[in-house]
């Protein structure tokens, strides 16, 4: 599948934004974060800005962005529509939460924070299900895809929260959460890759053409001499050559280094911890961009079975 930059950026940015909103909504009312009102407001604004930037970027992927509002109508059947509805609804408690944080309204913080956290989790789950529900793409139609989106969003959000908490001198607990989630994400992603690599696609050229009863099926002639939409969109193959290296880069930058930096930050503390927090968050987001690019670039679609495999 073609890794459209707008979608890669959208899922990483909004994922991190929702992750940050989730942890802020859960940990702030529990008193596990710096009590400063400026900290709370800054973190909430960064979360909402990331979410909004991601959603705007996703509009760039549409052929008719001005009709985007129509996507809110079919939540009964469509995960994309559910994602849109959840995203819009989540803004309501999130904005109330932001106001409560800015004014230090602790009574309002708990309900608004928890509702924001629920909204964030539901939205990211819907994003994951958009991909997990697509049967023609075996790398996406996998039980670990939707939980993966949740895990990576909560990890990147925790990383941002740990960095911000560090600025206000209270980074211990979020850094612990981020380090633990980073390690979990590392093992989860490795397990996912091991699983998809070991699972053969259920469809073959033989089943796609129904000619398997004669013998092996080999494409002889394409319907067209030039490329077409289907090949450009769903038979993207650039990444496969470098997949192994890119996977290592994603694991290292995305999960291993941030987890290590946060562990060091907890141990060392002080000014060094702030610097390590910034490095860890930057590394996590960069690694997740690579991971998300691979999610698309490595995905294979059954329509490619109809076309010759390029050499």
């Amino acid at each position, binding site marked *: *599948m073609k890794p459209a930059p707008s979608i890669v950026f959208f899922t990483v940015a909004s994922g991190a934004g929702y992750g940050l909103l989730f942890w802020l909504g859960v940990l702030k009312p529990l008193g596990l974060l710096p009590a400063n009102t400026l900290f709370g407001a800054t973190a909430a604004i960064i979360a909402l800005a990331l979410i909004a930037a991601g959603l705007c970027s996703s509009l760039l*992927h*549409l*052929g*008719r*962005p001005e*009709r*985007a509002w*129509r*996507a*809110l*109508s*079919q939540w*009964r*059947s*469509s*995960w*994309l*529509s559910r994602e*849109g509805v959840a995203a819009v609804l989540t803004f309501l408690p999130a904005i109330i939460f932001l106001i409560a944080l800015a004014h230090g309204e602790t009574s309002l913080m708990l309900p608004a924070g928890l509702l924001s956290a629920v909204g964030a989790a539901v939205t990211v789950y819907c994003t994951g299900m*958009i991909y997990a*529900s*697509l*049967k*023609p*793409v075996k790398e996406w139609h996998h039980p670990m895809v939707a939980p993966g989106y949740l895990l990576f969003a909560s990890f990147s959000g925790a990383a941002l929260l740990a960095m911000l908490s560090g600025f206000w001198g209270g980074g211990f607990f979020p850094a612990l959460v981020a380090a633990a989630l980073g390690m979990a994400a590392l093992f989860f992603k490795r397990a996912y890759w091991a699983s998809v690599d070991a699972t053969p696609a*259920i*469809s073959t*050229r033989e*089943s*796609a*053409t*129904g*000619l*398997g*009863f*004669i*013998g*092996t*099926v*080999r*494409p*002889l*002639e*394409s*319907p*067209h001499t*030039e*490329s*077409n*939409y*289907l090949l450009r*969109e*769903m038979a993207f193959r650039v990444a496969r050559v470098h997949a192994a290296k890119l996977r290592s880069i994603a694991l290292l930058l995305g999960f291993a280094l941030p987890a290590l930096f946060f562990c060091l930050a907890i141990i060392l503390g002080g000014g060094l911890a702030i610097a390590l927090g910034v490095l860890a968050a930057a590394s996590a987001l960069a690694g997740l961009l690579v991971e998300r690019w691979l999610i698309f670039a490595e995905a294979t*679609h*059954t*329509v490619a079975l*109809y*076309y010759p495999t390029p050499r």
Partner: protein
Amino acid sequence: MTSLPTPAPGAKKLGLVIDLDTCVGCHACATNCKEWNTSGHMGPLPDQHPYSAAQEGVWFNRVHAYEAGDGDEGRTVHFPRSCLHCETPACVTVCPTGASYKRAEDGIVLVNTDMCIGCQLCAWACPYGARELDEDQGVMKKCTLCVDRIYNETIPEERRVPACVSTCPANARHFGDLGDPNSDVSKLVAERGGYELMPEMGYQPVNRYLPPRKASSQVKSAPKEAGPLPSQINNPLLRWMDKVLSR
């Protein structure tokens, strides 16, 4: 509504039956499809860079060719690929806008191009590559089963079939109600062992493909070389030999 309609008992399931035994791969179906549909229900079907390198465009029907099997059993098979008007089309249910829909009355899957936002999720959801993006309009396009021909009372009744069916010079394409077991197409499918593509995906395509027939035994033995006619043999001795041995 992108939720699928509950089919009424005895509702029509219009679709195509494509005979892979007789298809000669001439692309006439694809060409006539483009010709009709570019000014039809879901038209236009634009082309990008039509007069230069890398020209491409929207087609509802594309004709592939495959080699299947080896040796005496090996075959070259021409293979037209278009929308199969599935009974459970995920291209419809994933649509966030309601632009994609399946008609309850005859099962045709259509796109309302006035509502489509061009998110392309339907193209991702279709295992068969039946949906293509119109890059000029920014909306998705697909086979309409020539909904603007098959019910069109302004054209003669015998021409009320999809454009691809009407133009096929090998009579390899058949159109009809696959929900009615007594229809001509259903009988053809039963007789020839018609099958669906990628049944493992669970989309329950309506269209059926008729498999290439087994190669006959005559084709397998090498053809006999024809001898010269007696009048072509000038040498009298050889002409006499040929006459004796030919008895």
